[in-house]
């Protein structure tokens, strides 16, 4: 069987990363953009539904805990700051600092998980589920989809922290660290929109 791995070494061209400006842009941005587009569609869907059931949506929105929402926003913003520090340290090849900041990102980020569980359990205790009405359907679906993204990001951060212990952070791993950080910023910026959308529009 012609097994390509047994071939004489291909004269592989070196990856010339500086060839074009486009080449320097992390490809993960495609993933991020696609995700953001779908979320934008979800936001639109929410607003369309809301227009047809204004009173219901505003009343339901008022039952959400704004302070938990603010706390969540501050947690993600701070976590985002720490991952910027992590990327910065990685760029300079400082492994311990990189791992330290990645850990800090993770630990602060974990706070988001805690507050989310508190929030969800409070709602569920009051008998509010995603079938209660259309607002709550969107509430659970939007925050739930966001939460799944958050979990993915937390997993990525953990994996990066482990890998940073085994390889140079300014080597090939740097690209992954940068991609993970960019993805984490997406989790942050999506929440920055979701928070006012769900929690603040109903203010009178």
């Amino acid at each position, binding site marked *: 069987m012609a097994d390509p*791995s047994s071939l*004489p070494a291909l*004269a592989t061209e070196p*990856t010339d990363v500086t060839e074009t400006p486009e080449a320097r842009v992390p490809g993960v941005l*495609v*993933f991020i953009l*696609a995700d953001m587009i779908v979320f934008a*569609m979800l936001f639109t*869907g929410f607003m369309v539904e809301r227009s047809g059931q204004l009173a219901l949506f505003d009343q339901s929105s008022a039952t959400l805990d704004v302070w938990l929402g603010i706390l969540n926003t501050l947690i993600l913003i701070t976590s985002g700051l720490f991952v910027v520090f992590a990327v910065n340290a990685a760029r300079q090849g400082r492994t311990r600092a990189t791992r330290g900041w990645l850990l800090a990102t993770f630990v602060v980020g974990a706070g988001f998980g805690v507050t989310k569980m508190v929030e969800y359990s409070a709602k569920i205790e009051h008998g509010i589920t995603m079938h209660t009405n259309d607002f709550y359907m969107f509430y659970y679906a939007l925050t739930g989809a966001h939460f799944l993204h958050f979990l993915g990001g937390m997993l990525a951060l953990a994996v990066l922290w482990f890998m940073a212990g085994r390889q140079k952070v300014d080597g090939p791993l740097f690209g992954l660290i940068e991609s993970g950080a960019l993805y984490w910023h997406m989790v942050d910026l999506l929440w920055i929109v979701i928070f006012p959308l769900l929690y603040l529009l109903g203010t009178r």
Partner: protein
Amino acid sequence: MNTNMSNAAYFKYWRACAAMGPVFLTAFIVCWGVLGYNIPPIPADFTAEQMAEHFRTNYNEVRAGMAGAMLFGVLYLPWTLAITKVMEWINPNENNMVSTLQMWGGGLTVVPLVTSSVFWLTAAYRPDVLDAVTLQMLYDQGWLLIDMFYAITTIPMVAIGIAGLTDQRKQPLFPRWACWYSIWAGLSFLFELLMPFFKSGLFARQGWLNFWVEFIVWFAYIVIVTYYVFKAIPRLEQERSALLAKA
């Protein structure tokens, strides 16, 4: 490397397999989609009576559509093989685990496509005898299978992206954006987790998200990957010729 095999022999069937992608897509849309009344799916909030009415009226089209879907659905397999062969050439320093996962995942994708079609076919086979609730159940079952077994297709879609990203060529066989799109598209099926909970709205099987967005994303992926497989084959022919000359 088997230097006894000429390039002509090595690349035989490859393009034909790759071409099965567009054939599959076209046939699937016509048979499963149009004839089978699946584009868009019959709403989950239709009554059993309305569902029965559909099968008792449109049974011949559905029979034809599903027969076609079950036939052409298998083409996902040779198409997957054409992709696998490209993946094996992406990076000689990588093992074949990712490409093998892609092969099995893509091959097994045939299962939900074909099996779900048999449920719809069953409903169309004896619609006058079966009661409305049973007909509804059969239609539901087809959709629950095809929608909820997305994970088997997520695997190859993510695998292609991951493998494609290990390409060391100045101009990768699968461009970076296509790799990331493939990964994202494979993971985006996770929205279907909500599908069993809704009979109406965007998360239901007929919803704008869980039907239109998800299926368009998947169809686009098929087109994009096929395009780059066809572009890769002549490049690989040149690469292998160069290697044969050296050996």
